[in-house]
């Protein structure tokens, strides 16, 4: 039996790829491995991965998972209650869903980032967000074969709907975890060097009303904690906006009882629909 030697760490293939220079999937691979978002990399004040790479990578990964979502309707096309057009529509809509969520939430992140006196510039902040979206979509795309397998092996529309909700939730948490880790480092306020000519405004420490109490925390630390709390809230908003955006852009799977359409009528919300789908399942 032919045996292959186990690669040392890092592998020769990785070294050869690195020598060839950046490639689309090479960059995404490095992002997933955390090379661009290590503490050392973020503390240099920027992220080296190009925005274009992240955007194209997100489009490809999202389109792959979207196609696996629309496959359910495509397979029902023969029975007259589905359409192969749904495969194309979902392949287009999944990347759009993430990119639109980004467009809607980016301004608020920009404001919070600026308030925190983050070292990252606007472009870098966008890279971090797009990086989180790419991580989210990479995990989602890796579940594409599983989704496609269930699409091929089941005819239960409610089951498929809940399965996709589950996959989106799991990958969403992975993306948000990535964002949280990256932002923790980014939100470290810039230390103003002593003797600097233009010093930025630092809020005064709160007044202590109790004499002899423990000294108040350092202003920078206090500010940092506040910003972290704001960011935690912002991450929740990011998730909610994403969920609602998905609801607005539906259908992604294509209900067998309905004609193909690019969009559905507005009304209700995703949470109510998920609860109703549990009822329809059995």
């Amino acid at each position, binding site marked *: 039996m032919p045996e292959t030697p186990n690669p040392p760490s890092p592998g020769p293939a990785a070294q050869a790829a690195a020598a060839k220079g950046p490639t689309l999937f090479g960059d995404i691979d490095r992002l997933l491995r955390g090379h661009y978002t290590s503490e050392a990399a973020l503390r240099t004040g920027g992220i080296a991965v190009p925005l274009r790479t992240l955007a194209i990578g997100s489009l490809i990964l999202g389109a792959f998972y979207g196609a696996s979502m629309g496959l359910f309707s495509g397979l029902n096309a023969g029975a007259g209650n589905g359409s192969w057009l749904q495969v194309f529509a979902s392949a287009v809509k999944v990347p759009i869903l993430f990119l639109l969520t980004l467009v809607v939430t980016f301004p608020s992140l920009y404001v919070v980032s600026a308030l925190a006196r983050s070292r990252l510039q606007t472009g870098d902040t966008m890279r971090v967000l797009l990086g989180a979206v790419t991580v989210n979509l990479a995990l989602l795309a890796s579940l594409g074969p599983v989704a496609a397998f269930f699409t091929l092996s089941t*005819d239960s529309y409610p089951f498929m709907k809940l399965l996709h909700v589950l996959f989106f939730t799991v990958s969403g948490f992975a993306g948000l975890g990535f964002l949280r880790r990256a932002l923790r480092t980014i939100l470290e306020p810039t230390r103003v060097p002593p003797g600097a000519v233009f010093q930025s405004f630092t809020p005064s420490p709160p007044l202590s009303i109790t004499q002899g109490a423990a000294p108040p925390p350092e202003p920078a630390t206090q500010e940092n904690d506040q910003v972290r709390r704001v960011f935690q809230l912002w991450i929740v908003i990011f998730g909610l906006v994403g969920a609602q955006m998905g609801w607005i852009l539906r259908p992604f799977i294509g209900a067998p009882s309905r004609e193909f359409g690019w969009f559905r009528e507005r009304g209700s919300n995703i949470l109510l629909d998920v609860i109703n789908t549990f009822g329809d399942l059995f």
Partner: protein
Amino acid sequence: MLGHATEILRAEGRHQPGAPTTAWAALLVAALATPAIHGAVMGTWSGRPLQVFYSLTKVPLLLGAATLVCLPNFFVVNTLLGLREDFHAALRGVLASQATLGISLAALSPLIGLIYVSGCSYPLATLTNGAAFLTATLAGQWTLARHYRPLVERDPRHRVGLVGWLVLYQFVSIQLAWSLRPFIGSPDFATTYFREDSWTNAYVDAVQAMLMAL
């Protein structure tokens, strides 16, 4: 091949965790060829040669396809956990556990044959084959644990990767097994590769059956 099988089961020699080389071909052959033996024996209960042939192809298909469908996610999850440098070792552990499952199934097939020859009903045949799969799965887990032990000691995040793999693999393989029925060949049905209701959902059907029973 027997030498490889022994070393896979013992996780020693060429198939020990951390071995300098990996005999991928031996692992793949063991993971895909040995379950076919059990599949063939499974199908003999029906007394129909076509069912024997179908089951012979379906058991390796079940194990191989479930692994293949889950591998992309396993790769991405390991990468996200920062465990890419160990992916080679993790994949070797997964394949070794699949090979152990296959070899164990093959080893249990004479017992299944003996039970068939002794005269057994269709429910008993289903039950004994279920028990054989359960036993072989536990054996596979034993090998997987042996391969993962040094990895978890080195980095506890491997535990997350392992749990993720097990959950997804079980989730997919239960539905795939449902879709690939029949394996034994019920006397009430003609010999076909798939049942008419193959494209239903195992989980939905199971919950519906439970609700009807209550």
